[in-house]
């Protein structure tokens, strides 16, 4: 064994010589390297071949020097852009640069946009061309106009009108507009974006900083870098922008569902702009990018009754319609939005609700306050009684229906967790859990139809005595998901099992197995079933997630377990200082497992930690 290791060390050393030679630009001479160790030549050649093969597969060019100087190269304009005289850089972002320049022939100032690199990547090039084509297809007074498209050396560029009144973002920073001014401006933007939609183009990155303002206050939509053709399947996103400015994302973008982005995505963005112009703040400001994304996905936009009292109700309703979570609940087209804004501006009823009817009701209530209260109470009580009756009847039906639906799954749960000892092959206590008749035997009270709490099956699972705790390394505790299936099945009368379930209740999760290994290796000594007593039994999944709730599935940051694992101070840290600690990767595995919903531990022994 020692000899083998020594041999391997020698080959490793020879490889270092080979490495030095190849990095020095020489062709390594294997024969010379092995002059004193000829017997190692075959092994050395084998390893060299392996290394070269893998480096080729990974696309890695090994060097002691930094590899990607070219990545940062060329953020300056090319020396010469034919026909233009470049004055200065006015903006940069992502892969593009925008210069202020003079078009020599016409002596007019233009904005020259080009890629930052001399040898652009294919996808940058494609996106850049897509943007130029998108804008060039659009002819609208409120969309930035392109004068020319060309190539300067290896870099494509396009020249567009130069607009020097700042952006809408600057304007919002200075002051919020009056409701009427705001409605007028957003209506103009909506008409412009409708023009783009008609041409089959969705902008997908509408935000105040992408809306340029002329000196006379005319808005012009620019930066179509994320634009998507409605009739083309591929969807480019630019991460820097999305991650950097999530405040203007729609729920479908925030959820990463790029396939669902369409015209309604732009309508959502217009709603966000409208909201910001009216209130001075976007609808979902967050402490961080991820917090904002979470709010966009889960919260509904509202106007505060107190601080936004001056904003007309109709305009609020229009804005909230744009900000609906589901695209289909927003305006169908940007033109519909513009029309409603115009109706608001001309004091006509808007489509999002009927103010005249509301006003009539309000007036009636003011004239008959006592009657109003009595009427409302009577109607409410009637509705309550009616709904209670319907609810209880519907609930009973639903419980039965649910039991029939989960019966095959209940069988699968029993088969997996109980049948190894109480099944056809091994009938401990004369019990085969898959024999429906035996299971419902009234003497045994294993399953008492319609009464999960009286069923011994459920009691034994809940008190942890089944499957036997001493087997916990192989048979995991019944997870909460599985327990609920059994409870639902019994609550609905424990109907016959029906067909075998095609899909397991608990899917095998490799990550859960990894986490089980980690717990086994690092926590089990102090948290095994017979040591932990009233404390945490680390392999008892249901105890972690539902009984003691130290793991909140889907929410690592609120999981006490994560707080203990990442505790900076010695006090309260788990595992305690002095015990083998979890590596950062193992902690991340645990965190990710929780984020994915903490899938239950699979059955079977945890595999030995391979050579780690």
């Amino acid at each position, binding site marked *: 064994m020692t000899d083998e290791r020594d041999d391997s060390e020698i080959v490793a050393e020879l490889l270092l010589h080979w490495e030095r030679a190849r990095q020095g630009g020489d062709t390594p001479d294997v024969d010379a390297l092995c002059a004193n160790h000829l017997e190692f030549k075959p092994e050395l050649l084998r390893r060299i071949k392996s290394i070269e093969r893998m480096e080729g597969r990974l696309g890695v060019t090994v060097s002691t020097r*930094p590899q990607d100087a070219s990545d940062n190269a060329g953020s300056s304009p090319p020396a010469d852009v034919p026909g233009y005289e470049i004055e200065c850089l006015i903006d940069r972002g992502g892969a593009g640069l925008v210069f202020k320049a003079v078009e020599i022939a016409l002596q007019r100032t233009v904005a020259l946009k080009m890629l930052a690199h001399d040898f652009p990547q294919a996808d940058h090039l494609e996106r850049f061309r897509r943007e130029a084509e998108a804008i060039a297809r659009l002819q609208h007074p409120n969309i930035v106009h392109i004068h020319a498209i060309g190539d300067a050396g290896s870099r494509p560029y396009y020249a567009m009108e130069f607009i020097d009144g700042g952006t809408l973002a600057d304007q919002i920073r200075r002051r919020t507009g009056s409701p009427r001014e705001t409605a007028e401006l957003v209506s103009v933007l909506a008409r412009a974006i409708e023009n783009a939609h008609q041409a089959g183009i969705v902008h997908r990155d509408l935000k105040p900083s992408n809306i340029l303002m002329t000196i006379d206050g005319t808005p012009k939509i620019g930066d179509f870098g994320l634009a998507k053709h409605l009739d083309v399947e591929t969807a480019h996103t630019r*991460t820097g922008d999305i991650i950097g400015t999530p405040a203007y994302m729609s729920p479908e973008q925030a959820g990463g569902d790029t396939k669902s982005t369409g015209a309604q995505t732009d309508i959502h963005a217009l709603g966000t702009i409208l909201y910001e112009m009216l209130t001075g703040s976007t609808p979902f400001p967050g402490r961080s990018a991820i917090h904002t994304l979470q709010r966009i996905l889960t919260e509904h936009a509202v106007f505060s009754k107190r601080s936004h009292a001056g904003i007309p109700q109709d305009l609020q309703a229009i804005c909230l319609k744009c900000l609906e979570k589901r695209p289909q609940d927003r305006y169908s087209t940007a033109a519909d939005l513009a029309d409603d804004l115009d109706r608001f501006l001309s004091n006509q009823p808007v489509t999002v609700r009927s103010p005249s009817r509301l006003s009539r009701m309000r007036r009636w209530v003011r004239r008959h306050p006592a009657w109003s209260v009595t009427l409302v109470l009577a109607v409410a009580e009637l509705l309550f009684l009616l709904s209670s009756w319907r609810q209880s009847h519907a609930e009973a039906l639903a419980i039965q229906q649910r039991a029939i639906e989960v019966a095959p799954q209940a069988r699968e749960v029993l088969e997996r967790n109980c049948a190894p000892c109480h099944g056809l092959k091994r009938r401990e206590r004369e019990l085969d859990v898959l024999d429906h008749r035996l299971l419902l035997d009234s003497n045994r009270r294993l399953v008492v139809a319609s009464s999960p709490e009286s069923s011994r099956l459920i009691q034994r699972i809940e008190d942890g005595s089944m499957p036997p705790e001493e087997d916990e390394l192989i048979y995991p505790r019944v997870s909460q998901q599985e327990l609920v299936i059994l409870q639902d099945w019994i609550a609905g009368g424990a109907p016959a099992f029906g067909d075998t379930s095609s899909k397991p209740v608990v899917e095998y999760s490799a990550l859960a197995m990894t986490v089980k290994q980690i717990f086994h290796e690092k926590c089990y000594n102090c948290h095994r079933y017979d040591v932990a007593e009233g404390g945490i039994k680390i392999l008892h999944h249901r105890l972690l997630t539902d009984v003691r709730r130290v793991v909140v599935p889907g929410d690592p940051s609120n999981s006490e377990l994560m707080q203990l694992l990442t505790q900076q101070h010695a006090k309260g840290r788990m595992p305690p200082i002095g015990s083998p600690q979890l590596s950062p990767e193992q902690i991340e595995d645990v965190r990710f497992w929780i984020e994915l919903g903490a899938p239950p531990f699979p059955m079977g022994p945890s595999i030995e930690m391979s050579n780690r």
Partner: protein
Amino acid sequence: MQEFLASNQLAESLKRLVQGDANARDDVLEYSGERLRQLTRKMLNDFPVVRRWSETDDVLQNALLRLLNALQTLQPANERDFLGLAALQIRRELIDLARRFKGPHGLATNHDSNPAEDRLHQPLTTFDPADLAQWTEIHEAIGELPDAEREAVDLIFYQGLSQDDSAGILGVSVRTLQRRWHSALVRLDDRRTR
């Protein structure tokens, strides 16, 4: 990459992150975003079929969202931990992605070229399920390397660092780093040809 690593701002942000400043998370991502994007693109370059269905930056966005989520809970103590975490997220995203596409019911089945790229005069590429499977296996195999070797691969392959920089981050000599790199590659190749 030098610029990325030498960036005082990144080092400063990481320091703030370690001290518990939640805002530092966004800064750290901003500084590293460009590098991560290059990596993802590099890795996807060989697989036009994947790019057809999920653009490079979509992959990266998911990886960054995962990283953001991870940073909500974990506080990398130093650059080494941060870069390791970043590599882990990219690896996971790519593995998930490949799983989604390969196999008889994968999204990519029966789609054998990227029409958009054909138009852009790219070489006509054909979908080879075996390639995609191997690609997944490589990332999975990297995840299962012994810690020291995996860290070397994380830094050189996933983070695109030079051997000097990698050795500096790990606090080992360049020779040690090279040993680990060689050993990792031989192990990966052995596993592949096994």
